[in-house]
């Protein structure tokens, strides 16, 4: 009994969609547009995050050691760090090398260093993560390394990281806001379409209720119809995103030098499923709003 009732209700939902194709089409296109924009935002956020992470990773952590540290002690510390975390690349910069670097950096002004009676620079270890770390990861790493004995000071471009993090946070908030806005708009359009469909069939609904149909039975075809619109819209949006990734983005990434080395985020099947799910939920919820309001009156 459940099976043939479900079959009848789905048939009716499909039939309604088919009988009023124009409003349904508007609904479907709105959902697909909203989800396309939403998905682009999310993928853009992924890309931005990957970019920020890679920038964050480039900011290496420098451990300034006590001035009195001998070469032997410094190399011992280097071994210790590498042994603890093999995914870190560590370079030892002794005092002489540090001075040489400073000279090169100063260029014409390097004469100022000639008057020094002794090398004022401490030896240091330059630690670079082999794989990209998010800003928070870099911060944690710096704190961890700062605890090591013989480390006088840690420098990891704190301000730079703070700015990156703020930027990432801003992007997230803006993206979430934009996502909710487009999804909300799509929801209202679906609700309106279904409201029209309900209105068009108000006589039938009235009679069904008078001969003993439950609210659920009356509601089901409309919910299915909304969910179906959402699903079709999501499928269109998914197709759009895949098409853009396949044909548009490869050219675009070459065009933008800043994105070099950052691949456009891949759309996994999980992302696709999430998109379809979002479409169905938006459609379902939109029609729920429409029908609930009608059944109450």
């Amino acid at each position, binding site marked *: 009994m459940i099976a043939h009732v479900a079959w009848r209700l789905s048939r009716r939902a499909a039939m309604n969609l088919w009988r009023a194709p124009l409003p349904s089409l508007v609904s479907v296109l709105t959902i697909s547009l909203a989800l396309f924009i939403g998905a682009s935002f999310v993928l853009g956020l992924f890309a931005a995050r990957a970019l920020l992470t890679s920038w964050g990773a480039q900011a290496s952590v420098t451990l300034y050691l006590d001035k009195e540290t001998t070469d032997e002690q410094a190399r011992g510390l280097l071994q210790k760090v590498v042994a603890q975390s093999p995914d870190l690349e560590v370079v030892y910069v002794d005092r002489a090398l540090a001075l040489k670097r400073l000279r090169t950096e100063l260029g014409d002004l390097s004469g100022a260093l000639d008057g020094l009676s002794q090398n004022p620079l401490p030896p240091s270890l330059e630690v670079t993560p082999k794989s990209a770390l998010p800003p928070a990861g870099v911060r944690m790493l710096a704190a961890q390394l700062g605890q090591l004995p013989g480390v006088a000071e840690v420098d990891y471009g704190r301000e730079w990281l703070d700015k990156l993090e703020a930027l990432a946070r801003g992007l997230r908030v803006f993206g979430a806001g934009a996502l909710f806005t487009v999804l909300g708009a799509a929801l209202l359009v679906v609700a309106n379409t279904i409201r029209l469909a309900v209105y068009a069939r108000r006589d039938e609904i009235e*009679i069904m209720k008078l*001969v*003993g149909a439950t609210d659920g039975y009356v509601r089901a075809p409309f919910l299915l119809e909304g969910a179906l619109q959402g699903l079709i819209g999501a499928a269109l949006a998914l197709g759009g995103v895949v098409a853009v990734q396949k044909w548009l983005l490869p050219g675009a990434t070459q065009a933008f030098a800043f994105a070099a080395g950052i691949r456009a985020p891949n759309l996994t099947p999980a992302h696709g499923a999430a998109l379809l799910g979002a479409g169905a939920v938006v459609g379902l919820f939109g029609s729920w709003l429409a029908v609930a309001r009608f059944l109450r009156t």
Partner: protein
Amino acid sequence: MIQLFHVKKAYPGDAPVLDDVTLRIEKGEFVWLTGPSGAGKSTLLKLLFCAETPTSGQILVGGRNIVRLSQGGIPFLRRNIGVVFQDFKLLDNRTVVENVGYALEVLGASDAEIRERSLKRLDQVGLKHKAASLPQRLSGGEQQRVAIARALVNEPTILLADEPTGNLDPGLTDSILQLLFDANARGTTVIVATHDRTLLTRYHKRTIALASGKVVFDA
């Protein structure tokens, strides 16, 4: 089967449509509900299948107080009550047999069962040959009979008919009433609202007369 206790129905701003109505109708009875236009006949029937709620008073149907019925319980009450509406309430874009089938569809019957039972009822009201027609293509009397077929298709324990013979010629009136008498003979409790006094004298049944919302006659 049906009991009303001091039922009052008033729309805001108007004099009460029904005022202190107390009634008892037994299982298997056939009752005329009569009174002038605007007396509250349709309103009384609507109270019985919860299309309206009384302003005060209690109503028992089949031993259950339907005034206290929750929203979710109403469909199940209605499945036991067949209603022939004063304005038929047939769907113009559905065929006759589909219209009759609605009352079975909401019960969860299969398509084949719905069709078979609907056709059988249509046969009983003499309209099997019009099964595939749209209601607009039928005469008033034929539409009336489709409405009766729908009200009876799921063998309800109570049948409420609101002016089922309004605007029909006497010959057709008799054949339609015969359908109601047949249902009554099968055990269904039948209440027929009518303002046609000639019916009451032609067919002697219990008669409840309303006037200005009060029961003025019951015998």
